[in-house]
């Protein structure tokens, strides 16, 4: 584990938003003894510790209900941990204020398991959202979105309403949106659940492309085919526990 030197003392007066620095060599994501209990008593994660280095692609597996989604939600502050320390880009998440959380989320692309697309908007509008909230120029947005649509074989669906797409097409739109702003960290939750093996390859191609541009990627999946044949690290969750044999060993 590369976590040793992460406990750097910081003055509490530093503006946390300023410290979101994905470019140095600290772990991009680090969890220490994190537990998550949903009220009243659903234990989703228990004493999970791991670190993800910059530039890694890491897979998160586990049975249905093992806690994969919960873990990803903790990283982008959609849920708060019941116990434990979570750092993203060297920043303790429990100490972020609202503004800093907004900054953080702009740096993390998330493809949600249930997509969270706006069903009545066009594919283009959906993918453009992360770019629009950072006030990118219309030309940049168009170029970037079209590039992604091309990569995911969705070019002919560009102006279709999301509701009229097949489920697998929607899944790719969700992935495209997560990747649109070229985030330093990308979280993909079951990215190939509705995709055949051929289309899954397109998605893995997108991940590799992003990874080469410096994006750290965490993929929660049950699809062995996408992690079996490569050397990436796999974290195996089971009933909220991280299997020690796999975790932390690249």
């Amino acid at each position, binding site marked *: 584990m590369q976590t040793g030197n992460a406990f750097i003392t910081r003055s509490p007066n530093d503006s946390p938003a300023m410290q979101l620095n994905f470019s140095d060599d600290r772990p991009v994501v680090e969890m220490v003894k994190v537990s998550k209990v949903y009220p009243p008593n659903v234990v989703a994660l228990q004493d999970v510790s791991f670190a993800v280095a910059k530039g890694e692609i890491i897979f998160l597996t586990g049975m249905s209900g093992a806690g994969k989604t919960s873990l990803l939600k903790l990283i982008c502050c*959609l849920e708060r941990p019941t116990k434990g320390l979570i750092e993203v880009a060297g920043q303790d998440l429990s100490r972020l204020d609202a503004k800093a959380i907004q900054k953080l*989320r*702009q740096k993390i692309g*998330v493809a949600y398991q249930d997509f*969270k697309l706006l069903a009545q908007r066009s594919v283009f509008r959906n993918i453009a959202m*992360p770019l*629009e*909230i950072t006030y*990118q120029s219309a030309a940049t947005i168009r170029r970037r979105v079209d590039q992604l649509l091309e990569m995911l074989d969705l070019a002919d669906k560009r102006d279709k309403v999301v509701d009229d797409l097949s489920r697998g097409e929607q899944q790719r739109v969700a992935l495209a949106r997560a990747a649109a702003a070229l985030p330093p960290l990308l979280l993909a939750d079951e990215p190939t659940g509705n995709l055949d093996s051929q289309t899954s390859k397109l998605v893995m191609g997108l991940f590799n492309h992003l990874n080469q541009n410096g994006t750290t990627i965490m993929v929660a999946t049950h699809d062995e085919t996408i992690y079996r044949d490569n050397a990436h690290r796999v974290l195996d969750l089971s009933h909220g526990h991280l299997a020690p044999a796999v975790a932390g060993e690249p």
Partner: protein
Amino acid sequence: MHFLSYLFVQTGRNLRQTWGTQFMTLLTVSLSVLIFAFFFLVYNNFLSVGTKLGDELRLIVFLKEEIVPELRPQIERKIQEFNEVEKIVFVSRQQAFERLGAQLAGDRDVLADLGSDFLPPSIEVYPKKDLRSLARVKQFSDYLATLPGAEKVQYGHDWVERFGYVTSLLRIIVLLSGCLLVLTTVFMVSYTIRLTVIARREELQLLRMLGATNTYIQGPLILEGLLQGLIGSGIGLASLFFLFIWIKTRFSGPGLLTLFHFTFFPPLTTGAMLLAGILLCAGGSIVSIRKFLRV
């Protein structure tokens, strides 16, 4: 994209996408403003009509003897002591007789055989307009009866009483309707806005998840609220104005214009109502959005 251009582009997009709801909201706001302003206008004009009708009120003190002119100031002072009055008119026997003649008009000749002094002299007291309450008029009347030489005090009991009752009944009705309507207005507008925002909850939550700043999220919605308030209130007040014109022309008989002097709101009040409409809508938006903006 710069913030301002984003703001207008996004607002335009919203308005286009949800024009059905927008239209309903606009209708609600217009209708509410119309109703509220209508009642406010009625109430205002009603008050001034009330004032006009109140001018009629006079108390007549019949006297045993005519009062010599030298005594008049003294009596006037005495009357003023109890209550400020508008005007005091002393009517001599002769004047009373002439008046009766004027009243009988064509039948004046029936008075020809009579002496001009069979009617009693009197003092007519026209009280200030603030003497509104019936009880007070009665008190005043009792007071006047104690004046030296006063034999009897008379005033249009019936007319004053009826007018007083009608006035206060109407005032209660107008005020009650006003309350009900303000209640409805506030309720409708806030309800509508709440529903608009709920319909957009999904989008707002997604924007939050993507890390959009509060300014980014709120901006277009507030602008939308402002526009709705502006246009809605505008339409409401304009409709009222045309309604007003219509009523006014309907009632343009010469006899009436002297009695009722219809007036629309002065520009300042109109402006204030417009502003209130705008603030209500924009404020409603802000309050409703805030719930969704907690991280």
